[in-house]
């Protein structure tokens, strides 16, 4: 199947998401809450694009009424590219007048709710965002846009230590009862996927502090790079029976190559 994105023809499979197709073709679409490993968030809406379907070249044999397709007007609609599966051949505009206007408003509103985020400020500069009283930047040091990617990452990769708490304007991401979560292993997945840098992780010597919890770091015995936290390895050993890693991925690869070289006498 072929979709045309900004005049460029790109081949894809039926059901693939538009954002993934565009990314593969090297076409940049702004996005915040999208992460390739955690699909289906679709809440920041920044990847808004215009899709034109029903141009008549996807006929499904209404042969008797010839010309019925040309009578049908093509449909143009605004969709979120990250959760729009391509079902039929279509033409996509990522920078039409309508897209620019919608995306600008979204950016301005996100900037107002998370004024301290440099990532959002950068996107505003890159894609353009309107100014004005309606979008007046609220005071405060908010960075979180409540996309929920961190909670999803924690449930998928970690231990489900964080979730959204409360609702409406009081909604936030936190641990149960706002206390240091007993189950948090300090893997830092939440901070790594956060698109706006809202989750604070502090590393000081052999300690990592995250969600008000301080954990001991483990290091590679060869190069000293951080390999995780002691609690993380402990839990992995209890639940999956894995041994705590002695080497970091780089050193492990190097050790493997050395062994191979020695074996084959290179």
């Amino acid at each position, binding site marked *: 199947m072929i979709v045309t994105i900004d005049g460029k023809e790109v081949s894809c499979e039926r059901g693939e998401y538009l954002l993934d197709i565009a990314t593969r073709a090297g076409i940049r679409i702004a996005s915040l809450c999208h992460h390739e490993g955690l699909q289906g968030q679709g809440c920041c809406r920044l990847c808004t694009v215009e899709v034109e379907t029903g141009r008549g070249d996807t006929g499904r044999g209404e042969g008797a009424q010839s010309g019925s397709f040309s009578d049908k007007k093509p449909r143009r609609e605004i969709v979120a590219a990250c959760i729009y599966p391509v079902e039929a051949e279509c033409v996509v505009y990522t920078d039409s007048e309508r897209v620019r206007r919608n995306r600008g408003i979204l950016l301005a509103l996100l900037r107002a709710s998370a004024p301290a985020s440099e990532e959002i400020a950068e996107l505003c500069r890159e894609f353009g965002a309107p100014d004005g009283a309606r979008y007046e930047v609220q005071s405060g040091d908010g960075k979180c846009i409540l996309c929920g990617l961190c909670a999803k990452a924690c449930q998928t990769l970690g231990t489900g*230590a964080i979730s959204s708490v*409360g609702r409406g304007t009081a909604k936030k991401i936190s641990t*149960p009862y706002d206390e240091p979560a007993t*189950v948090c292993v300090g893997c830092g997945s939440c901070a790594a996927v956060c698109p706006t840098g809202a989750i604070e992780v502090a590393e000081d010597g052999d300690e990592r502090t995250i969600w008000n919890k301080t954990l001991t770091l483990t290091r590679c015995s060869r190069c000293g790079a951080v390999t995780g936290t002691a609690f993380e390895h402990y839990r992995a050993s209890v639940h999956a029976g894995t041994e705590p890693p002695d080497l970091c991925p780089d050193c492990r690869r190097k050790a493997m190559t050395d062994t191979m070289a020695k074996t084959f006498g290179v």
Partner: protein
Amino acid sequence: MRIIAGEEINALLNTYPRNAMYTLAVMQDMQRQFGYVPREGLDALSGHLERPLSELYAIATFYKALSLTPRGKHIIKVCDGTVCHIRAGTNVLDGIYRALGIGPGEMTDDGEFSLELVNCLGACALAPVMVVDGTYYGKIAPESLHEVFDAIRAEGVID
């Protein structure tokens, strides 16, 4: 405040299969039985369903029908909808504060009354209106509140 025994919670949990679809039903039962969703209850439910505590906490904080802090025997709901607001619903709040010494979201020390501020009770003709344990009290004169609460106290729980 009543201390909730682990057996009570376990007995409640065991009436439900270990399936995530019963999460909300269990929480509603806790709310009914204990007057709130206790922390011990959420911990036990987390173990029962093998779901993270954070997920249950998210649900418990989302629904207004669930409370994480103890609520009194009698729930007073004071309307702060448009009409009640204009008809001086805030005077009712002041009256309740004088009568019981509690504000919205608080409970009296004896555990008898809890006060909630709600948006619209759908009885605008009776404004300003309050509901105690499902009984509507319309066109409230703040000075009469003392008598209303004394009567409710004397009657006990209306279920």
